């Protein structure tokens, strides 16, 4: 006789576990924020940070705060921390969404060419933009860089998707090969732009290729915050659709979802947010691949949990990687893209080896 299993108890247990993981990811994110904001050439203790922020809201505390510290925290560290949180959240959420959409745990914005496509378009904007910018309206000119990155990201996304999808199914191998080809084409394009660029442009270009959170200011960051934050929040609302996609597109339709509309929506949201992130940070690889995987290994493939957990963990990891990048070779600064690739590359290989063993992580 089958055991009398209490479905509700199973469900409660699941939810308790989910809450536990989500709150521990949230706690580590807060810890990473405090560390990233406080650590560096000038150290800022958490209580001083609090005083500075409190006085910023016109609420004076007993502690006196050093003006240098205030300046560094508000003008340098905080925008960088915000960018780190947003970039990590965008890349991880985009990775999780693409993996669900393609029913393929190896999809990643950088791996399948989206980030590189965005970087190529951004690089073109840097090198060639000067020639066209005078003809553009002021608003468009100011947004030329993120716009170019967005268009590049979208074009790459659409190309990869069209090539790899057939009869509603996405071929794993074709997807990755299309990504390789796109990366090669974009790489050649970037190489050509390097050849064409002058010294100043070359310095700016270098930044795209390796990825960095450095040099961000509120002026650069503020306009792109909604372009990154809104798609991520929107993706979080699509978790049930992504769950249904895991059964196949026809099944998702049978379950009552508008498959084509959802698919296009996800691709646009991914291209928009990744494009914006790339416009500010350059290419930071493997975050979108590694983070959702770690989450799935810990708590399973349900997107209602995978998406928010990836957002929290992605933000934490990018902040931690940036902290390492700017502190391990003081006074110089390492590119964060180098660090994430150093960690992500071996992780990717490990995944391939595991898959060969027949285990799907």
């Amino acid at each position: 006789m089958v055991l009398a299993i209490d479905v509700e108890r199973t469900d409660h247990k699941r939810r308790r576990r989910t809450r536990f993981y989500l709150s521990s990811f949230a706690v580590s994110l807060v810890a990473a924020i405090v560390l990233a904001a406080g650590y560096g050439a000038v150290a800022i203790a958490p209580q001083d940070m609090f005083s500075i922020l409190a006085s910023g809201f016109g609420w004076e505390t007993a502690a006196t705060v050093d003006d240098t510290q205030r300046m560094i925290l508000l003008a340098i560290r905080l925008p960088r921390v915000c960018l780190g949180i947003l970039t990590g959240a965008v890349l991880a959420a985009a990775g999780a969404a693409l993996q669900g959409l393609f029913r393929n745990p190896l999809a990643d914005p950088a791996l399948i060419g989206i980030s590189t496509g965005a970087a190529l378009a951004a690089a073109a904007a840097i090198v060639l933009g000067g020639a066209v910018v005078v003809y553009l309206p002021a608003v468009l000119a100011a947004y030329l860089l993120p716009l170019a990155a967005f268009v590049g990201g979208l074009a790459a996304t659409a190309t990869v998707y069209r090539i790899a999808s057939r009869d509603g199914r996405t071929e794993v191998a074709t997807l990755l090969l299309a990504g390789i080809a796109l990366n090669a084409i974009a790489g050649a394009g970037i190489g050509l732009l390097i050849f064409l660029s002058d010294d100043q442009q070359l310095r700016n270009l270098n930044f795209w290729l390796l990825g960095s959170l450095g040099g961000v200011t509120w002026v650069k960051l503020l306009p792109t915050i909604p372009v990154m934050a809104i798609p991520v929040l929107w993706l979080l609302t699509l978790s049930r659709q992504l769950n249904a996609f895991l059964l196949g597109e026809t099944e998702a339709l049978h379950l009552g979802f508008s498959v084509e509309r959802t698919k296009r929506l996800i691709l646009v949201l991914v291209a928009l947010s990744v494009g914006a992130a790339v416009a500010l940070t350059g290419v930071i690889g493997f975050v979108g691949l590694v983070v959702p995987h770690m989450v799935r290994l810990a708590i399973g493939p349900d997107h209602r949990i995978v998406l928010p957990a990836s957002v929290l963990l992605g933000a934490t990891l990018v902040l931690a990687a940036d902290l390492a990048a700017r502190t391990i070779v003081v006074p110089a600064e390492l590119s964060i893209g180098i660090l994430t690739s150093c960690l992500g590359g071996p992780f990717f290989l490990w995944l391939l080896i595991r898959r060969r063993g027949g285990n799907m992580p």
Partner: protein
Amino acid sequence: MLQAVGVSVVAGGTRILRDVSIGMRPGDLLGVIGPNGAGKSTLLHALSGARRPDTGEALLDGRPLRRWRPGDLARRRAVLAQTSVLTFPFRVLDLVLLGRSAFAGRASRTDDLRIAEAALRETDALHLIERTYPTLSGGERQRVQLARVLAQIWLPDDGGHRGQGRYLLLDEPTNNLDIAHQHAIMAIARRVCDVGVGVVAVLHDPNLAVASCDRVCVMNAGEIVAEGPPATVITEDLFAEVFGIRVAALLHPIHGRPYFVPA
């Protein structure tokens, strides 16, 4: 009423369905049989709304399927596909709850759980709820997927249907199953049908159709070649004509319907 009217489907220059018309009402159990490549699955896809006919129309309650919103349609009909692509380690309970997707915001979590539990009990898969899908055997997967589609349309008292006809489309539900589970699945189909759901099942085994269906529709080369009660439709001549095999009919000692064996 769920019906196909003059449906033709062309794919890659080949006509897979040729002017097919068939209709069913809630409470019917219709078996679709025919040799490989006859167009059985394509007919099912046309009836589910997944495949838009090139000519003709598939309709639910007189309204073309393409005019239905996916969510409204999903509360009226569920589909068990032939193969499943799920490779992510989804938990069985969560998978069955996916069947409740179209009721988000219409049914409470408690209702959803109650219905999932009832569906899993019906398919004898309740003991699997803590397992992950890729670790299940072929037979277990089929029962869990069946529980998912049952959870979508089965229980009449969950508010979404209000007495409107519901339909369950099964694409070769007995594939890869041992003989006991084949009959168990068809017994479930019969019970679902008895509570007023119209069931269409694509079946490979004509004997299974004879034993379990009210009505059969025989397809060959994209056309319906015969339709009606199994006892009158499925004959030695039909086997010779459609399947190209000579058979002899035995009388089943218990239910008295014919049972065909190769001659």
